[in-house]
């Protein structure tokens, strides 16, 4: 995003809208293009009184910023808007997460800080050591040069995005070891990241992942997402 310096009247109305604080104000407002994640929020919401904000033409690799930052960009891989996939939201229809397996989602850059791919790569490589298969429908996976090792394309490493999601499944018994590795890499990144687990309930509505989270000694929230099983047709479990 850029601001036409000939038009800007320096009112500062756009400044607080930027999620990563990339807009500064002197006589006029200026966007730090290195920090801008191309989310489009300022253009859509700040109501610039002189229409000085404009979307400049982007070429790869900068286009990746928009794909992973602007929630209205539809990713080719998932076919849906946003940075993620259908994941557990349609699990009764897709059976993506089956009993005995746990889905893990690591959203790097969320909340607040945003991230550069150099951090996403550190976490991806720590997870790849477990032999995980990163979800192919997730746009973040398509940015890796080698999904088997979690290596990203070199030209992307300094690109900044609001967040990038690493998504994969592991057997539920592996969860404590995976979380230990995440604790280790957490001290080596400059970004905040969120971690979540998805688990299919058994017929008595028990959630098996909780015993493994307790074993790992990690905190988990009392609130979250519940798929209530109304999608049709129901998937047939293998």
């Amino acid at each position, binding site marked *: 995003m850029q601001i036409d310096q000939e038009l800007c009247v320096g009112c500062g109305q756009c400044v607080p809208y930027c999620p990563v604080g990339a807009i500064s104000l002197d006589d006029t407002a200026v966007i730090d293009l290195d920090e801008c994640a191309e*989310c489009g929020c300022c253009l859509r919401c700040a109501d610039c009184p002189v229409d000085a904000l404009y979307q400049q033409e982007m070429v790869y690799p900068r286009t990746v910023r928009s794909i992973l930052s602007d929630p209205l960009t539809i990713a080719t891989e998932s076919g849906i808007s946003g940075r993620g996939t259908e994941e557990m939201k349609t699990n009764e229809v897709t059976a993506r997460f089956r009993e005995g397996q746990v889905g893990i989602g690591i959203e790097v850059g969320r909340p607040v800080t945003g991230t550069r791919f150099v951090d996403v790569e550190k976490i991806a490589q720590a997870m790849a050591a477990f032999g995980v298969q990163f979800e192919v429908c997730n746009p973040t996976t398509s940015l890796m040069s080698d999904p088997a090792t979690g290596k990203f394309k070199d030209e992307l490493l300094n690109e900044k995005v609001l967040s990038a999601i690493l998504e994969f499944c592991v057997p539920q018994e592996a969860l404590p070891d995976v979380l230990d590795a995440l604790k280790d890499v957490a001290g080596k990144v400059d970004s905040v990241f969120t971690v979540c687990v998805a688990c299919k309930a058994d017929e008595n509505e028990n959630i098996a992942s909780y015993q493994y989270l307790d074993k790992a000694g*990690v905190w988990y929230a009392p609130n979250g997402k*519940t798929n209530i099983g*109304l999608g049709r047709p129901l998937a047939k479990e293998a």
Partner: protein
Amino acid sequence: MTHTLHRVGSDENLREDFVVLAMPSKDINHEGSGPKLQEIIRICLKEGAVKAGDARLGNEYHQGGLETMIRNIEDRAVVTAVFNDQDKLVNALKAIKAGDFGMSIVVSGLFDRVKECCHAAGQKVHTVNTSLGRWGATHKLPATEVMEIQSMCGHGMVSVDLILDTLDQVKRGAMSLAEASERLFRPCQCGIFNTDRAQKRIEAMMEKV
């Protein structure tokens, strides 16, 4: 596995925060899903949803009005509705179930309360997604009361600076609580930002000052 997950709050203030999300699955049941998703949103609004949204094409502000937003809902959309009341949520879920739309429905909120709602609507818990919180450079995060508001937009579009600026405007009497919550809702393109809860959280922050 994010979006409506990771909402920060106490047990007490999360009791009035539920998000219903409805979507089809690509290549399984997405054809003809647009009208079904429109109907689900109309049901939620009729039953008293605080806000509704379309994550594919943007919120009511972006699309020029709530009715336009609903009419524009297309196949493959992901639609949302925010509730601040458990009974209203149960009524909406019962009506959605009776409509037999075949769309996947995910409810976000306190797990024990969502489970109660699920049972009241005649459904069982199928799959859960649990937040393990924030890791890494967490020293960069603002105070918890700011995070309670910021985390209500899953895509991180409601900036910390906008929250603090809005709080300042309310303190100075330049903006009402209702205006403040709408200002904060606007960047949340999926419409999952709970304006009712935001008003209460801003009010609580004012009392602390």
